[in-house]
């Protein structure tokens, strides 16, 4: 039972991390685009989803989508809502990473004849990613914690399952306390992973000026 919940939490988290990252990259590039319309739209996106509670967003989709004839399960709705919402946070982190890439480095790439797309993909994005990895890590750790909210739309991930176990066993304190500890361990492991990755990706910083 616990294991089932863990698998749901893990898969929703993994899928949403990928989804929010992709959305984050796209929106971040929109936010630094030269086209005023794209900039406005991207910055509006970031502002909108960061200033509305996730639970409200998730209810909007969960109850709203069937009204327009889209019937998807709680798992899919949750993954989608998480990707969209966390995408806004990821975009903001990446935007500031991109804006902080040294313009001189970008100019060097430009005059060497690399295409705009190649400059983004080979120069700007990798550099922005490396400096954004830690803040991005906290965004994703928060994502994992946020998956618990999906229990309110009947998804039986860790928290949803714990609710059932708590009422079956009449031992809510032990169950929720253990669950909190488990989330702590989970996020701690995740942060270790991110640190490791950060160190790997930033080995070029060793001995930097």
């Amino acid at each position, binding site marked *: 039972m616990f294991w089932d919940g863990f698998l749901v939490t893990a898969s929703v988290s993994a899928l949403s991390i990928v989804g929010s990252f992709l959305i984050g990259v796209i929106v971040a590039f929109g936010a630094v685009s030269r086209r005023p319309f794209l900039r406005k739209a991207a910055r509006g996106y970031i502002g*909108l989803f*960061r*200033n*509305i*509670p*996730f*639970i*409200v*967003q998730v*209810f*909007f989709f969960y*109850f*709203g989508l069937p*009204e327009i004839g889209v019937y998807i399960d709680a798992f899919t709705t949750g993954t989608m809502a998480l990707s969209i919402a966390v995408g806004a946070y990821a975009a903001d982190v990446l935007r500031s990473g991109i804006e902080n890439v040294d313009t001189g480095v970008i100019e060097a790439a430009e005059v060497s004849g690399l295409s705009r797309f190649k400059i983004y993909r080979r120069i700007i994005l990798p550099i922005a990613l490396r400096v954004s990895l830690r803040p991005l890590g906290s965004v994703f*750790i928060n994502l994992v*914690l*946020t*998956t*618990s*909210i999906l*229990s*309110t739309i009947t998804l039986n991930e860790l*928290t949803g399952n*714990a*609710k059932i176990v*708590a009422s079956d066993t*009449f*031992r*809510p*304190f*032990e*169950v*929720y*306390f253990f*669950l*909190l*500890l488990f*989330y*702590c361990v989970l*996020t*701690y492991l995740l942060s270790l992973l991110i640190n490791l990755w950060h160190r790997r990706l930033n080995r070029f910083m060793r001995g930097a000026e």
Partner: protein
Amino acid sequence: MRNQGFNWHDPILWAQGLGVSVGVFAASMILGTVIGIFIALCRVYKVPVVAPVLLVISEFLKNSPVLVQLFLVFFGVPVLLQVNITPAEAAIFTLTGNTAAFIAVIAISAIDAIDRGQLEAARSFGHSERSILRKIIAPQALVVAMPALIGLAVNQLQVTSLISAIGVIDLTKVGQILNQRTWQPFIVWTIIGVTYFILSRLLAAAGGRLETRLRRHMDWAGL
């Protein structure tokens, strides 16, 4: 009960929910700030036992879902201690603890950012530790911490929405009630979402103004 339209009572319900959300937010923010600063001071003055224990609790709160914390307090604690806790009490208690954990981190790093030399100078002039804290550390730390505090406040405002899950009739719960009655999810959740959005922006704007005022004040003081 399905498909009943909105009625004249709904705006009042909305306003009540709004009041509860803002009330819980304000209460937990104020209490949390006081406790958070207390934790930070224990840490800064290296109070034995208390400091590490508080720090562990604060880490625990930061790294676990608030929703589960709410469940623990509302469902778990009454069974364990054989006491009665109302949803509102559980909500304020939990969010206060949560806010305190984050405030402590912000306060510690703001205090760390203050130049050590200044403090030593003040001590050498024989100022009491209390007055150093009040007159030198606190005002500077506040300015340094403002951006982080604004971010935290906006975030904690969103977090209050979770208290709907333990039955507090806040703005989100009002949304659920209206959603179930009218079955107009797009309208209901858009209104609720927009309300939170405006609240957040107002909060951020107010924080921003406070920050500029504090900074100006500091400039006058010649710091």
